[in-house]
C-alpha cells in the first residue's frame, strides 16, 4: 500500500488511482471519497440524489411519517457530510455505512436515547485507497446482492423487516435464510483487515 505524507501528494496519488481503477470502483465509493478527501459538494449532491429517496422509503417503512422521514433523511445526509472522515472504503460500502447512520438516527429520534456505539477505529490519515481491497469488498457486496435476490419473496420480506428494525420470532428465524457463505467470507475478510489495521496502530 502506498503511504502518503502530505496532502498534495495525496491528491496526486488519488488521481492516479482514479485513472487506474475508476472504471471498476463503484460511483458511490468515488463520490464518497471525493466528499471525504476533497469536500466535493457536487459529489455530495450525487450521493443525495441516490440515497435521499431510498432513505426516505426506508424510514417510512420502518414507521416514520412523511415529515418525520424527511427530517431523518436530512440528519443522516448531514452526518454523511460531517462524519465523512470516518468513512473507510476498505471496511464498509457506502450503502452499509449510510445504513448504520440511518438506523442510529432513527433510534435516537424515536426513543430519545443515545445509542451506544463502539469505539471508532480511526482511519490513518495518510492511508491512500487500496484498490484491490475496495474492489474485493465491492465484489462481495455484489455476491450478497445476488444471493439476496434469490430468496423467495416471503423470506426476503422477513429479512428486510429485520434489518429495518422489527424484531419478532418469525424474522429472527428468517436470519437462517441469509446467504451464509457470503456473510461468513465477509466476516473472515473483515477480521483479516481489522487485525492488519490493529497491528499498525499498536
Amino acid at each position: 500500500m502506498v503511504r502518503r505524507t502530505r496532502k498534495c501528494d495525496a491528491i496526486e496519488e488519488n488521481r492516479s488511482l482514479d485513472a487506474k481503477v475508476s472504471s471498476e470502483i463503484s460511483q458511490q465509493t468515488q463520490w464518497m471519497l471525493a466528499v471525504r478527501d476533497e469536500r466535493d459538494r457536487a459529489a455530495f449532491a450525487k450521493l443525495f440524489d441516490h440515497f435521499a429517496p431510498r432513505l426516505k422509503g426506508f424510514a417510512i417503512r420502518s414507521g416514520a411519517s412523511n415529515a418525520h422521514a424527511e427530517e431523518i433523511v436530512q440528519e443522516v445526509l448531514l452526518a454523511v457530510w460531517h462524519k465523512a472522515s470516518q468513512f473507510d472504503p476498505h471496511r464498509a460500502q457506502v450503502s452499509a455505512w449510510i445504513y448504520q447512520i440511518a438506523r442510529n438516527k432513527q433510534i435516537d429520534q424515536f426513543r430519545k436515547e443515545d445509542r451506544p456505539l463502539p469505539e471508532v477505529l480511526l482511519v490513518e490519515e495518510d492511508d491512500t485507497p487500496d484498490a484491490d481491497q475496495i474492489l474485493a469488498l465491492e465484489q462481495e457486496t455484489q455476491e450478497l446482492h445476488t444471493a439476496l435476490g434469490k430468496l423467495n419473496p416471503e423470506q426476503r420480506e422477513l429479512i428486510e423487516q429485520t434489518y429495518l428494525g422489527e424484531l419478532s420470532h418469525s424474522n429472527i428465524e428468517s436470519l437462517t435464510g441469509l446467504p451464509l457463505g457470503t456473510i461468513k467470507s465477509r466476516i473472515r475478510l473483515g477480521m483479516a483487515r481489522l487485525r492488519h489495521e490493529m497491528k499498525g496502530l499498536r
Partner: protein
Amino acid sequence: MSMSHIQHHIPEPLLVAYVSGNLPEPFALVVAAHISLCVECRAAMEAHQQVGGVILNEEKCVAVSAGMKAALLDLLDVPVPEEKPSRPKGPYPAPVADLFETETPDWRSLGRGVKQSILMDKGAGSVRLLSIPSGMAMPDHSHGGMEMTLVLQGSFSDVQGRFARGDVEIADSSVTHTPIADEGDTCICLAATDASLKFNALLPRLLQPLFRI
C-alpha cells in the same frame, strides 16, 4: 488491549438486533463495549451492516420534497459543535467510559470488598459496574429477564465456564449461576439487565447460534 483471547462472544441474532437498532439500551451498551475489544464481533457487525446496506440500496424510492436538496446543500456550511472525542479510560472501553465524568467510576461499597457503580437505571433495564475481589461471589443484580455480563478486568468462573477480559456471559433469570472472581486481579464487570416483556419473549431465539465462523 487484549484482542485475541476472547472466548465468549455476542450471539449472532443479538448482533443483528444491535445493528438494526433493536436491542434495549442496556444490552446495546454491552455489545458496543464488547465490540470495542473484539475484532471478530466487529467484523461480524460490519458484515451485517453490509446486508443492511444492500437492502437500503435496493429500497424503493420515495420522492423527497422539491426544495430539500438546495436547503441541505446550504446547511453544509453551518458549523456543527465539535463532538467530544470518546476515549477509553483504563480498562473501560469508550462507550462505558463516556458514562462517567471522572477518570474512575463512582464506586459504592456493597460490603466485604465488593463495590458497584450504577451507570444507567431506567425502570425495566439497568447497567452497572461491579468490582469483586478474588474469591468473592458476584452479587445478584437481576430483576428477572436477561442479564449480560462483560468482563473488563480479571476473570470469574461459574457453571458456564471461565470468563476473562472481553468475554460476555449471557444468562436469563432461570439459570442459577454464581460467578466467583478468580485468583489474581480484582474482577471488574459491566453487568446489564433488562426485563422488557417483549424482548424477553424473544430471548431463547436470540441466543441460538446461527452461523458464526
